[in-house]
């Protein structure tokens, strides 16, 4: 590339001893860097050096392992499958989809009381929320309350972008497939009498999601007003502004919705559904006893997947 014929050669007079080029020393600098003699640590991998390393690693991992073991022992979980594959399951009837909404009840018993905050998850398996086109099928601007995106959602949302010439809010396949079963937990007090366990809806999503990423369309009026000219997702029963009665948990900032929109990494996943807060130090959050779940089975799901409710004791 470079021509070797350059001014230096021509003017200074080239190699090796040109006239007048007296004592122009080309001797390279004798620095550690240029002579590649930088001080260096030279580890040599032999049994002698590596075995102690292994040993130390092992030593470090022992307490870690113990810690993990203790923690996991302290976590108590109870998993209740309400898919209804099993014909004996009370929810079996809902699979046929004749009755909508189909409500089924599942009984279960807590052997031990849950002392701390209890987290209630719903779990799905074989649900590919990480499918490439599924993951893309959303419009973050719309979810962030951008009025233009609200009425003109991103192309990524296709084919759930418009319905009957109205933009869908929230658009996209993720939103469209939102989990919308309703679960209620009851404690059987004595025989037939039961009390509903209060389930906390808020605080299940990331704070930043709820407050930064997801926002309702701007405006002062009621949500319905703000969402006018949009239509509900195809699969949804009710529009987005009717997700909850609480204004702080309605529309795009509905936490169930936000949780759903955070697409799960693996096809078997769970998502936080409710939190049962510990009320006082004296009473366990969920005392041992019989409980039953009231499930409003809406989630349109034609596959054999496992739907389950998981109750996790925080520090039990």
């Amino acid at each position, binding site marked *: *590339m*470079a*021509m*070797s*014929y*350059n*001014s230096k050669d*021509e*003017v200074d007079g*080239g*190699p*090796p*001893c040109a*006239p007048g080029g*007296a*004592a122009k020393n*080309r*001797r*390279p*600098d004798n620095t550690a860097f*240029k*002579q*590649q003699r*930088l001080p*260096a*640590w*030279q*580890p*040599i*991998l*032999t*049994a*002698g050096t590596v075995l102690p390393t292994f040993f130390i690693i092992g030593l470090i991992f022992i307490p*870690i392992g113990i810690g993990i073991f203790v923690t996991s022992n302290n976590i108590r979980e109870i998993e209740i499958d309400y898919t209804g594959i099993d014909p004996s399951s009370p929810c079996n009837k809902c699979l046929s989809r004749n009755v909508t909404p189909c409500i089924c009840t599942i009984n279960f018993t807590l052997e031990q009381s849950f002392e701390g905050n209890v987290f209630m998850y719903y779990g799905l398996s074989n649900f*590919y929320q*990480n*499918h*490439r*086109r599924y*993951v*893309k099928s959303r*419009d*973050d601007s719309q*979810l962030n309350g951008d009025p233009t995106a609200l009425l003109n959602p991103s192309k990524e949302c*296709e084919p759930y972008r418009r319905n009957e010439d109205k933009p869908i809010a929230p658009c996209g*396949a993720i939103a469209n*497939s939102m989990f919308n079963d309703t679960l209620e937990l009851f404690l059987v007090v004595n025989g037939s009498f039961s009390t509903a366990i209060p389930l906390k809806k808020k605080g299940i999503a*990331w704070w*930043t*999601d709820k407050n930064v990423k997801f926002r309702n369309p701007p405006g002062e009026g009621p949500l319905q007003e703000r969402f006018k000219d949009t239509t509900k997702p195809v699969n949804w029963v009710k529009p987005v502004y009717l997700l909850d009665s609480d204004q702080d948990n309605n529309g795009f900032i509905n936490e169930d919705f936000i949780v759903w929109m*955070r*697409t*799960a*990494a693996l*096809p*078997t*996943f*769970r998502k936080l559904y409710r939190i049962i807060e510990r009320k006082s130090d004296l009473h366990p959050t969920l005392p041992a006893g019989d409980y039953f779940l009231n499930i409003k089975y809406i989630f*349109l*799901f034609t596959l054999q997947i496992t739907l389950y409710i998981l109750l996790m004791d925080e520090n039990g």
Partner: protein
Amino acid sequence: MERDPAAGEDPAPPDRRPQGRRGRRRRRRESRTRTVRSNLQPPPPASAHEEGAAQGARRRRRWWWWRPGRGGAQHLADNRLKTTKYTLLSFVPKNLFEQFHRLANVYFVLIALLNFVPAVNAFQPGLALAPVLFILAVTAFKDLWEDYSRHRSDQEINHLGCLVFSREEKQYVNRFWREIRVGDFVRLRCNEIIPADVLLLSSSNPDGLCHIETANLDGETNLKRRQVVRGFSELVSEFDPLTFTSVIECERPNNDLSRFRGCITHENGKKAGLHKENLLLRGCTVRNTEAVVGIVIYAGHETKALLNSSGPRYKRSMLERQMNCDVLWCVLLLVCTCLFSAVGHGVWVRRYQEKKALFDVPEADGGSLSPVTAAVYSFLTMIIVLQVLIPVSLYVSIEIVKVCQVYFINQDVDLYDEETDSQLQCRALNITEDLGQIRYIFSDKTGTLTENRMVFRRCTVSGMEYSHDANAQRLARYQEADSDSEEPVPRGGSLSQRGSIGSHQSVRLVHRTQSTRSHRRTGSRAEARRASMLSKHTAFSSPMETDITPDPKLLEKVSECDRCLAVARHQQHPPAHLSPELSDVFDFFIALTICNTVVVTAPDQPRQKVRVRFEQLKSPVKTLEGLLRRLSPSRLTGCGSAASLFPAKSSSKSGSSFLPVLSADSALLGLEEKLSQPAQAQAVASEGCGEDGWASQPCAPEGCAPDPCALERAPPPPPPKDPELRYEAESPDEAALVYAARAYNCALVQRLQDRVAVQLPHLGRLTFPLLHTLGFDSTRKRMSVVVRHPLTQEIQVYTKGADSVVMDLLLPCSPDDARGRHQKKIRSKTQNYLNLYAVEGLRTLCIAKRVLSKEEYACWLQSHLEAESAVDNREELLSQSAIRLETNLHLLGATGVEDRLQDGVPETIAKLRQAGLQIWVLTGDKQETAVNIAHACKLLDQDEEVITLNADSQEACAALLDQCLAYVQARTPPGAPEKTPAGGAGGRFYPLLRLPPEAAAPRPCLSLVIDGRSLAYALEKSLEDKFLFLAKQCRSVLCCRSTPLQKSMVVKLVRSKLKAMTLAIGDGANDVSMIQVADVGVGISGQEGMQAVMASDFAVPRFRYLERLLIVHGHWCYSRLANMVLYFFYKNTMFVGLLFWFQFFCGFSASAMIDQWYLIFFNLLFSSLPQLVTGVLDKDVPAEALLAQPQLYRSGQNMEEYRPRTFWWNMADAAFQSLVCFFIPYLAYYDSDADVFTWGTPITAIALLTFLLHLGIETKTWTWLNWTACGFSALLFFTVAFVYNSSCATCYPPSNPYWTMQTLTGDPLFYLTCLIAPITALLPRLFFKALQGSLFPTQLQRARQLAKRSSPRKPRAPRDPRGPLPGAPSPDTSEPSCPGASAPASQDDASPGSWPPGAPEASEEPSPVDVSVDVSVPLREASGRRAPGRPSGPRAAVPERRSGDSRAKPARSGRTASLSSVFSLPHFGSPGWISSLSLVGGLGGVWQLSRSSLHGDKREAEFLPGPPPPRDGDLCGLGQRAADYF
């Protein structure tokens, strides 16, 4: 001129040189000549216009229009230098176009473009373009910078000033170089650089001469003579450009520096030929001449200098080829994985589609994709996602690393040569790692192994041999002095010792000694030599070459005939009464003195002789000349011509000018001469001549008494005293001979175009009118001068040439008369001495003469003049003419010139050989000389078996080869270590034997000597395989008398058939083709000019630097780059693996859990720096250890670092690591509420940490740079992640990783996985490495362990317990076996024996021939072997130790050493072997070593392919082996 016969062979055909685009364009033009007219004349009519149009350059023509007054019609290239590739406008398209020549770039751009297709896109389209654009931008920026610096240097040159004649001002005015154009007249003063190719029209030199130095062009520092165009030299007044009306017709611009043809047509229709002697080339410097004027013929890019310049070469290294192959594997892998997941996706889609799964997103129109379409889309998307498998930054990274490697090689102070103040130059930027894989070295001899500093050693004249013992002793002392001066403190003794050398030269010698001593006080010998070189600034004139001690007998004879002739001349006797021998002696020295092209200069006025007197005396000379011209035709019958005028003219001219200074000169000369009487007599004679000479001369009868005017005393400037004269020769041989003649008081004092002056003590100054000089060429292998002898007026031809040629041209002598018989005897004697010289390794030249009768000369002259004036095939005609002249010669004698070995050549060869390199020497020299040099440089061992292959015909060659092969195969029977006591003369060398010595000594290694003719047969298609097979068995191969073409053919053969890496090293033009053919070409920037360097990839100042270049830098470069490439593949595979495993969990939908930003910038930003630092700086073994154990080099030869096997292991490890790094987070986050990117980010972090740790395992030396780079890398990732994850809530669909990283930092699971996964992933590798490092360490690992262990105590001696020879392979290192000794098939492990200091059996019976050789060269051998260095003080640094060893090694050679080893055999039997092991174990202090050494030994034995060496196992074998080691 007379160089190595091979060196004379044609330089590489210029056409083969890479020609620029301009060259190609030029070829398309039709006209084959160019016409040049003066720009000062009005434009000529039509034809020139046409040509002008043909030249194109419209832009320039417009420019011409509005510059009136310069209106020539010649739109030829102007002198503007433009080496830039781009203009502002063309940069972007042109650069992009060039970059897309690289396939990888096209690939990445295509993939990025694929991303724009919505159906398959994986990333944001813009983002996908980023890495490609980044890399293109980096490259473009680099190109831009290079172009800019070229532009700047162009500007600098374009704005140099020069005197150009201006028509307006009617005088020379200063202009920039770039404004010069063809047809301009330029005036150049002394020491100015010539701005364009200029036709010399006028010179301040009265003879129309001009001297130039071509160092810028070819590196030769001697002066070249150029001559004013014929017809202008006779001009009376100063040249006036305005009167120049001639038209010059010359060749199209071409790049042949040594050729220029054309003719000039004067206005009167007369024509004159132009040759290269008339042309001043751009870039040269005017010397020795006050001012010259010339017309520009070629300007700018059409000058020969620029046509010759070519950029650095681009070769593809072997590693890169291998890498490309593996890249193809990666492509295959990519396609496979993509296909796999495409099929998987198809199946998945079919499975879930019919069930109308919620997560299955239909098409935009609501319809659903068919599984097949989905699979196709998935395939394409997968390619985009997994594109990282083909490393986008690999090529750029490799380029960066190589540039850094080149930088470090250039900066190595150990490769810096103080003597020439030059360091190693890397001219090829991208084959550094090839240096680490060389198997074969092809070396030139002259100037490469030897110094190319010729020292006159001995001569034979008319059958008498003069051994010059004193001279030999003198040389021996020089060598001692050399080694002395390496000591820190100079010895007082050496001074006095040297001061007392030879009587008559003592003054000079003492002077020299003092100067050297003073230098030595300040510094090393090299510095002193450099200083002397600088001060003198003359090629080939170190004191060693110039101060020749004459042989007393010969000196006696020379002075005797000098005296006789002087007396005879003085008394006007014909000089016929000299005895034939004495006249031969006289002619011999005259021939030595004048038969050359040496230029005399006086260093007092460095290269400028001001000849004021000549200028003043010009007009009288002119008149005299006219007179003489009229008279001269009568002197030469028939063939009157301009040429014949020269002698008369010159003698008269100089005669007239010398008159005033005669007395002063004689006084000066008196100092030099002991006898003042003859000098005075001479002065009288000359004066007499001067007084009445002009009148009397024409009347002088021809051919009788010597012309008194031919005997002037002195040159116009007082001749400086003898030692002050400097000779500038084109080749060192010439200088050596002239210096030798001077030592015999026969000194060349002046050389002009038409006369040569020789100074003799009694005869005084003899001026020989020089009629012709028939220059040296490689086909004739001789040169001649034709002179008129001033004493006899005979026309004499002195010829000097290679003995093989000259001996055939001698006058056939009749066996009848006594004289003829005598002649015959002389010839046979001379031939014998020639053989002897050759055996001694001297370069021989024959000197002969011929006396021409006037008729003969006249006839020859006629034809010669015709040849000279011919335009077509002039060269051929001239050479025919020369051949006609050079017949019927009378042999005078022969000279032996020694070409000393360069410093450290034997040691370097030994080391290189230990390193497993097979060294072939390809030389044009005679077989005998070559063999001897080979012995001297330890290429051939005394006890080595030499197969000599000299065949006369194809059949004979075939038969010989078969015979040799059969012999070689019989030599290595499985399990016959018994010596076969076949004739002791077996391996010895027979100078003239035409058959290979058939006998066999069993143990010694084989060497092959083959001459050029046989080589030609052996290189035929039918024989080449056999030849190669035979050569492969030999430890060294010596090809003598080979032509440049043969050299390159041999290299090509080895390269293509053996598939081995080859390196060719040479210094001269005859090596160019070989250098170009070899994988790595190394040029030695020595004395022979720069042609070899121009063609080379690396240029070293000396042969010995090859050792460090290969063994240290080659190894490092190879190992660094190999490791880096492997790491790259690992890294990308591992990263892609993570994505691929994820496909199993996302329905093969080509989804990625890693955020696209990370995905795209991971390679480019986060993980690129540490590997670059490691690739540039890592040293697997320190330099000292590499040099101490050259066998470590073999790892590169065997490609141990980067084999296909290593590659696949590496890939497997990558797959495993990616499995670990994927599934640990998978298990950790299974059935959790983690979203895709919250889960992917830890995986990215884990991958990064794994990469860094992996690199940590691979990095052998951790400098602060490594730490910084790794820290920076990790920090950069986390910083970018933090910033990126908090910058925008909605900007990065679809991942939208807002606050992910921040959330993760609050999650202990994140830290836990980041800790566990990398460690788990790397455990197997670490475990394996450790296991291998301690159980089966490779040689490199052992060397590293050793080096580390011994590094705390600095002056270490690795493996010293094994004996004082570092070369002796220690038992745990390599197998010291000849290639032939092991199985023929074992090409890989066949390691040429690395220094058996005398195999016991071989030397048990010293052969008779051996003895005779020994006798003949005792002195030189002894001195030569002592050369490398003396025992030095306790300055026990590592290099010091080496030099000490190198001294010890040669001392051990020969019979004594082998005898001692024979004696020691019983004592050092197996017990010694075992004890040595325990000794090592004890010393090392670590059990590993002894165990590993045992193990390594065993392993080696096991791994030796083919039939195992017979000595393996049994006690006898062990003993023998032990003997080898000690």
